[in-house]
């Protein structure tokens, strides 16, 4: 467990097989991965390749059936108990009876922050995701993109250094998505958090990440890990540079290789 203290997430031969009604489903097998502090790691692959499952294992929402994993140098369970990560689900999952600021206050209430501290953090995170002035609104009064930003604010409100994001922008249109990607990068740069980010968009993965984990299904496994050579500072038009396109093509090749013996 102490083997890799510098790693925020460290998986060794990790596997997870679900026992279902129609027999076992191997969602993950033989996953070896190290996520270093301050990394922005994207997980990319076709649906069913175990991206969500891997994130859920890190978050202690699923238990692995093989291998080992540490989060912040301990088990996922104690990492969860220490509230060391914020999780952003594919859907915003805001509680409809709470206003946006009350939704952001939810983890703070549970973790016992004082009222004053809650107010300060709500204001700060709303500002961070550009939602200042929307705190008193109920979720249904906001667009899908704004709701997802509110859910990111909720995950940022407490002091977790690790952010787990499962296709947070998957349901949004491209223009909104570009905008949120830019904001997310800026936020990552400012807060120095470690981010694990699931996507099935190649440009999104390349634009955001310092490390891209390419996965393939049946059984879910890691087929390639690509270290990005792009600088930390990334304007949107970096996506037209040859360097960007080269990484994108490597990701595409990795995805295709994983697929070749299926279709």
């Amino acid at each position, binding site marked *: 467990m102490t083997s890799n203290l510098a790693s925020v997430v460290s998986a060794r031969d990790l596997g997870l097989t679900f026992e279902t009604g129609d027999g076992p489903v191997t969602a993950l097998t033989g996953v070896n991965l190290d996520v270093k502090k301050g990394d922005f790691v994207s997980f990319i692959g076709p649906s069913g390749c175990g991206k969500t499952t891997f994130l859920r294992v890190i978050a202690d929402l699923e238990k692995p059936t093989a291998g080992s994993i540490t989060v912040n140098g301990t088990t996922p369970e104690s990492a969860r108990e220490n509230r060391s990560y914020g999780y952003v689900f594919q859907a915003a999952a805001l509680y*409809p009876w709470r206003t946006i600021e009350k939704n952001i206050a939810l983890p703070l209430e*549970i973790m016992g922050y004082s009222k004053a501290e809650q107010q300060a953090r709500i204001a700060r995170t709303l500002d961070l995701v550009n939602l200042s002035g929307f705190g008193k609104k*109920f979720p249904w009064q906001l667009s899908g993109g704004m709701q997802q930003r509110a859910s990111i604010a909720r995950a940022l409100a407490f002091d977790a250094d690790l952010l787990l994001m499962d296709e947070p922008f998957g349901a949004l249109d491209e223009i909104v998505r570009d905008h949120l990607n830019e904001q997310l990068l800026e936020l990552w740069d400012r807060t120095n958090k470690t981010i694990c980010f699931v996507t099935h968009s190649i440009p999104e993965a390349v634009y955001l990440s310092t490390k891209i984990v390419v996965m393939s299904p049946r059984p879910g496994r890691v087929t390639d890990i690509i270290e990005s050579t792009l600088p930390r500072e990334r304007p949107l038009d970096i996506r037209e540079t040859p360097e960007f396109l080269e990484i994108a093509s490597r990701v595409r090749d990795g995805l295709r290789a994983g697929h070749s013996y299926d279709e």
Partner: protein
Amino acid sequence: MTMREKFLPVLSIVLAIVAIWYVAAVYLNAPFERDTAARAGTTITFSEIVPKTMFQERPVLPAPHQVIAEIWDTTVNKPITSKRSLVYHAWITLSATLVGFGIGTVLGILLAIGIVHNRAMDRSLMPWVIASQTIPILAIAPMIIVVLNAIGISGLLPKALISTYLSFFPIVVGMVKGLRSPEQIQLDLMHTYNASSAQTFWKLRWPASMPYLFTSLKVAIAISLVGAIVGELPTGAVAGLGARLLAGSYYGQTVQIWSALFMAAALAAVLVVIVGAAHTAVLKRMGARP
């Protein structure tokens, strides 16, 4: 929808019911007039019968205006402390209804919490809850009254307990569903915060169950009233709407029976409207889409 659009259909149905009622009153009360005439050795024409059927002392079916006159007389014209005041009797029944409803609601919610949080309770309790409602209330009400009387409990409480017996059921069923209504993703979120079961309950399950609770409360308040009235029937109670119904049928006072029935219906309607208003107010505070 404007008031007018809401009002017209209701009004036309009320008018239709009143018209049918008058026709039925004439039809059902006419034989008595014919028999009376025959006994007196006279004959009576239809046009002579019709006005008489409107004002019989003990009609088979009292005409609407007779019932209205009786209700007016026994509410407005009598002091509410009088044994002949319908308001007095309504209050007796209402107090048992509210106490029974209150106990039933608390009991129903507690059982639902137990069932949702404890697998053993879910398995063992739910069948009994359902079985309890398959026993006809008319069979069990006299036993409850007699048993409680035997141990010295009489008056309001036994009646209230019959209301409880009926009203806890929709609350349990509704609240079990409501407390289980949060989606997996909302529960997972709580898990990522390492929230305790109490926190998950108060911050997620309880607010999520509110629409279910109020829907159940509307059913429960109406059947609580039924329970309180049924509770008054087997005891030979001297007060309450049930007692009025029973006394009315002993003495053939059909007008009294019908006015007690209408009072009960009006009471039920008012109670349901109050619960409905509370429902709307609570959901509005919880940010429900208007």
